[in-house]
């Protein structure tokens, strides 16, 4: 069956993409893992032959003057804050996104296509610029502030911009399409006669939703949660722009290591930890639903 020419042709077709991804994606990730266990050089860079777990120790402990280790919670707080904000974003997009996906799935074919395009457009447009738009809306004297003032609801300045609340608003806004699209993809295949059948068998709306619709939507919901949680966790400029310096997240901490802090191994260790968490989540998802998230 195996025609050597077919095999060769296939290999040649796959080579450019495969090699590009291997050399410029897989190898760099490995290199990053290796650099995370090296000693930092004084002005950025690493000492190539000096193995050290300092980068991972540094996350938990601080070295005192007498070289003893004392627990340092600063980095853990940043991780915790990142997980909380990303978790909140996931929950909020789910609460907003599931009904939206359901609504779209219940329209006729043409309307569905249009609404999906409407959901997709923000997905493809510049997120940096759209984050900036929220700065216009949220800042003191901005539209929401003056709008509330005009209605007599505002009591002084809004003071939302440069707080974790602003970051949360930005996250929900940015990642909502990532939640709606996979849930919609699950619901699209739904045979709605099943729901009718559930009603005929005496189920009320809530039971029908919980026992018939929700199980169908589950792979989409799980994929959506991953697709929101992961980019939110590693987000850099949304907390940078909307959160000000105060609500530092993992992404900002990583960027710092290549900017002012000049500690490449620590930056590599943080990135590598993030990567490991993501891959773990992927494996769990693929095992559970037997398909890649987003498919």
């Amino acid at each position, binding site marked *: 069956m195996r025609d050597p020419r077919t095999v060769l042709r296939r290999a040649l077709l796959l080579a450019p993409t495969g090699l590009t991804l291997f050399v*410029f994606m897989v190898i760099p990730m490995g290199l990053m893992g290796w650099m995370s266990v090296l000693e930092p050089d004084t002005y950025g860079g690493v000492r190539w032959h000096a193995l050290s777990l300092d980068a991972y120790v540094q996350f938990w402990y601080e070295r005192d003057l007498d070289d003893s280790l004392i627990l340092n919670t600063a980095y853990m707080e940043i991780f915790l804050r990142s997980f909380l904000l990303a978790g909140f974003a996931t929950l909020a997009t789910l609460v907003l996104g599931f*009904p939206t996906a359901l609504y779209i799935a219940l329209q006729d074919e043409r309307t569905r296509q249009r609404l999906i395009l409407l959901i997709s457009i923000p997905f493809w447009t*510049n997120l940096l610029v759209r984050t900036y738009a929220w700065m216009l809306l949220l800042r003191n004297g901005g*539209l929401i502030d003056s709008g509330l003032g005009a209605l007599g609801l505002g009591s002084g300045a809004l003071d939302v911009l440069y707080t974790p609340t602003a970051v949360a608003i930005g996250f929900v806004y940015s990642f909502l399409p990532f939640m709606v699209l996979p849930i919609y993809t699950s619901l699209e295949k739904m045979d*709605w006669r099943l729901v009718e059948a559930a009603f005929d068998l005496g189920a009320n709306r809530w039971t029908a939703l919980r026992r018939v619709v929700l199980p169908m939507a589950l792979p989409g919901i799980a994929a959506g949660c991953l697709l929101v949680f*992961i980019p939110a966790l590693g987000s850099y400029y949304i907390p*940078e722009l909307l959160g000000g310096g105060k609500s530092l997240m993992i992404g900002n901490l990583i*960027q710092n290591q290549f900017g002012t802090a000049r500690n490449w191994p620590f930056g590599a260790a943080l990135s590598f930890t993030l990567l490991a968490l993501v891959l773990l989540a992927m494996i769990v998802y693929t095992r559970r639903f037997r398909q890649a998230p987003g498919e």
Partner: protein
Amino acid sequence: MPSIENRLWRFHGVAPTAWLAFVYLYLPIVILVVLSFNANKVATLWTGFSFDWYLRVLENDNILRATRNSLVVATGATVVSTFFATLAALAMASGPFRGKGVMNAMLGLPLLVPEIVTAVASLLFFLALGLELGLTTVLIAHIVFCLPFAYLPIRARLEGLDPRLAEAAADLYASRWQAFRRVTLPLILPGVVSGAMLAFIVSLDDFVITFFVAGAGATTLPVYIFGLIRMGITPEVNAISALLLMVSIAFVVLSYRVGRRPS
């Protein structure tokens, strides 16, 4: 197809929530575009209609240089990644084979790994190789993350293709190349165009990875805009941001029209 009398329809709150979601998604975009035409120097205070800030943007050499960098990188990344992705999609469409799973996983990596991780890994890789950061490193990084975006629409198009068409061409004594050139290529062309457009827009929009791997001379438009935003909210930023948004939206709508599967 759900019937109109479907009782789930009356599940309270579904429609209002959906509309809330749409308003939430579009309100900031609309506000930004409206404010970009604002005459007032205070970026959020409306006083009158004006094109001034757009003219100001078009006269700004730094913005023009950054735009040129962006276009050069996006064009290069689009051409290369679409070409590579088309070849790969053709191979991936042919039956099961060893290594298909690995290939799929690698194609998924740029989509699933957080941008900041890719950015750090690429930066360290380039620095370890001793490459000077600049347009070349930006271009390489962009080709990598554009690959899956170019690949997916082409793959989807091939999925819906009837393999008997190519077989029929072979029966009519077409060579492999002729069958590809005259039968397969025209059929997947909308997917290729759609993939190329998505690659272009993803490249044009990228900030995080570019921010890490661009040297001083390779500032792209989003990197430049980020610098401006950090310094403060100004009408110029409104105008350039609105321009970038409108270009992206035009591209997505166009790509959607081209890439739609024939019904």
